[in-house]
């Protein structure tokens, strides 16, 4: 029981509620710090690869250009073509560094490829529309959170200058890198400025209907009011999960637990049918209570 409580609390630590304009409260789960860090690493490696391939491609083009017969290095056309390649390189490096995140987060998924792979996306913190300004704002700050300290560190390690400047850069880097660890909503500096946050992007399949299968076989088990009254919604959902996962050991142990609780002894070999029947009848009972406005959260709740 203790383990279950802590598990529930841990789950609620990242749970937030968002109210849509239609007035429907939707549960949101904030992305964990680990998945955000993982997404960042993925994105950075994508950016690095893009930069690498662009650079190599341009060098290859430049090499091809130098090899063309009849074009001297001092020739105007060749010089201009080289200049053009160099400009392309500078511009593309700037764009990769600054526009990569912008481009993807403005798309319909609100996520960079790295975020998409880890199933997270950005959203407006107030439940409103995610605007282009938010995406711009949160990504401008990335510069001081990430790229600048990295440049600092690279410079410091290059020149062997690990004095006060190196220390200051490290401290700076840590303040911003660890920013998401110091607030409840795991916001980084850019999220605060933009009014955005990063949430999990859930994707679920529609599961099969439970009660159709149960009623395909004639109900061989009938439970009385007292036998159904021992459990509440929490136990019903646990039972649903066990039935959907359909692992024989789990079915057997849940079967044993329920039989002990309601003092039945139906014997072994028919656990699934028993549990399906119990599930359907328990759910029918709890749902009719629901329609009357009576809810029973779990087995500790008294019937009102």
């Amino acid at each position: 029981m203790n383990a279950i409580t802590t598990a529930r609390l841990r789950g609620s630590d990242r749970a937030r509620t968002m109210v849509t304009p239609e007035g429907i409260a939707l549960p949101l789960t904030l992305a964990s710090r680990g998945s955000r860090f993982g997404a960042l690493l993925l994105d950075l490696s994508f950016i690095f690869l893009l930069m690498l391939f662009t650079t190599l491609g341009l060098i290859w083009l430049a090499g091809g250009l130098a090899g063309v017969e009849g074009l001297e290095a001092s020739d105007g056309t060749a010089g201009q073509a080289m200049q053009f390649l160099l400009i392309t390189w500078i511009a593309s490096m700037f764009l990769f560094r600054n526009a990569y995140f912008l481009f993807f987060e403005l798309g319909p998924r609100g996520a960079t490829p790295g975020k998409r792979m880890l199933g997270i996306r950005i959203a407006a913190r107030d439940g409103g529309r995610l605007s282009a300004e938010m995406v711009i704002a949160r990504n401008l700050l990335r510069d001081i959170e990430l790229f600048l300290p990295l440049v600092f560190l690279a410079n410091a390690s290059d020149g062997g200058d690990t004095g006060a400047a190196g220390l200051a850069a490290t401290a700076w880097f840590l303040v911003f890198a660890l920013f998401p660890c110091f607030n409840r909503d795991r916001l980084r500096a850019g999220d605060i400025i933009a009014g955005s946050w990063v949430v999990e992007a859930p994707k679920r399949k529609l599961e099969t209907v439970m009660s159709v299968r149960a009623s395909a076989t004639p109900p061989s088990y009938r439970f009385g009011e007292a036998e159904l009254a021992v459990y509440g919604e929490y136990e019903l959902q646990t039972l649903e999960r066990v039935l959907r996962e359909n692992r024989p050991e789990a079915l057997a142990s849940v079967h044993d637990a329920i039989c002990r609780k309601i003092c039945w002894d139906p014997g072994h070999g028919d656990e699934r049918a028993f549990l399906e029947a119990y599930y359907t009848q328990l759910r029918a009972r709890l749902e009719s209570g629901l329609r009357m406005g009576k809810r029973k959260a779990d087995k500790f709740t008294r019937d009102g």
Partner: protein
Amino acid sequence: MSNGQQAIEAAALRSDRFRLEREGDWQKLEVIVSRMEAGRLRKLSDEDVLALPVLYRTVASSLSVARETSLDAATLAYLEALVQRAWFLVYGPRVSLGQWFRRFLGGDWSRAVRAIWLDLLIALAVMVAGVVVGWLLVASDVEWYHALVPTEFADQRVPGASREVLHDTLFGNKGQDALSVFAAFLFSNNAQVSILAFALGFAFGVPTLLLLVHNMGVMGAMLWLYHGQGLTLDFAGWLAVHGTTEIFAILLAGGAGLHIGRSMAFPGKRSVMAAAAEAGQRASLVMAGVVLMLVAAAMLEAFARQLIDTTSGRFAVGGFMLVFWLTYFYAFGRGSAKGATP
């Protein structure tokens, strides 16, 4: 049809019958949402795009009903996830990047600039102070020049250089190729500096102010150098070609950074977070414009300055750019302002 009917009748629970009757709509919405998320908009028919908001409301109301009547956790979780995904699309960034850009140029940018006027005034004062400080420091002790001006700038432009050498750095580069590579480099470099000035505003604006003072101090020191040889006006002209655009852009970036810092330090009646978000979104509009201005500045610096070799011509270009920006920011788009002006 009959198959579905049988299944609905076979379901023992009322809530499962409810689900079986409606899951067709749910799955239709899921297909549309999945396609839109994958970016395959062209594969969607117009009917599907029009159906999205309707289906979204249908499924949202299914969710409300299911929450009150059903205890099927898997179905509820499915509906919640589906409604959330559809919500992101229905209430997502509706405008394309192109539309956003048109609105941005057509008034959003100038409105945002007007809205941060107080921060711009503070930034301007700080920048003027920076120039004065740079000048005074170098005037009192020449050694400061080397401390302020980075070495790569200071090729021949060092204290003690003759008038001719200094004059040559300002004029007579006409024969050179247009420095397009130099322009691209300048842009990339300046854009990064102004993004930095903006981003530093997050620390309550103090580092932004320091950065502005330092950058303008460099200018003050160089101004002193040229003044010593009686080239003040020529130097100002040399600077004005791109400077009116570039320094204006840096002013905007600093002002935008300050705006965030000031909103966080003095949020007023709002919460700090709400104030920061509001200021950040406004400031990011200004910043998007700053990048554009820096592109223009780099073009002017690399092309116009080499082509126009007289001080009066340079002042004309620089002055025109200044008037252009001021007109654009403070006279343009006032009519369409909807209470956004301060």
